[in-house]
């Protein structure tokens, strides 16, 4: 078993990182900053799922992590195409 100090500390670090990325998502001067923050948030969520799987000893949520990685990638590329198309007009 991993001790609870490690689990709680790492989970808190991921939570603080999520809060900082959320601040950038709200504040971001351009749309590109917000998309970068969204991509980082999806990466952070994958990390939190992995830490939770280690803490609880259950592996059910790992499929959710795979799906989160896929959806984050497709969403970021779609937003990038939207930014690029919007600049043409």
């Amino acid at each position: 078993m991993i001790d609870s100090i490690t689990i709680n500390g790492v989970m808190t670090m991921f939570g603080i990182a999520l809060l900082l990325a959320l601040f950038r998502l709200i504040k971001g001067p351009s749309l590109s900053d917000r998309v970068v923050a969204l991509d980082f948030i999806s990466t952070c969520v994958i990390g939190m799922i992995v830490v939770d799987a280690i803490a609880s000893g259950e592996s059910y949520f790992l499929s959710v992590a795979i799906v989160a990685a896929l959806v984050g990638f497709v969403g970021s590329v779609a937003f990038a195409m939207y930014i690029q198309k919007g600049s043409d007009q």
Partner: protein
Amino acid sequence: MTVYLVAALLWVAGIFTLIAAIGLLRFPDVFLRMHAATKVGTIGVISSLLALALYFDDPAIRVRAVLIALFLCITAPIVGHVLSRAALIAGVPMSKSTKFNEWDPETMNPELPKKDESQT
């Protein structure tokens, strides 16, 4: 022994993700922020996935962890490239400390050797 290794990898993952978030918040430019968020964040999550693969003995979970790590390794550079290209085309302003922009011929450093277009 494995437990200590897993705990150390988890701490590494947390510290790297926190550094990536601080860089995402503090860098002055969208391109520099992308540099922090894609590379350092990916390293952090891959470290936690390595801890997951070490902690469980089940081969199915290890395959899943390696699959997620491989997928992140493939997609993070693609996302960084596509987003920075879109931001460059959309005309997002760079920070003032950027020395020169190779895609902008007016601000390009004249000391650099110019590309011969007949060779390209």
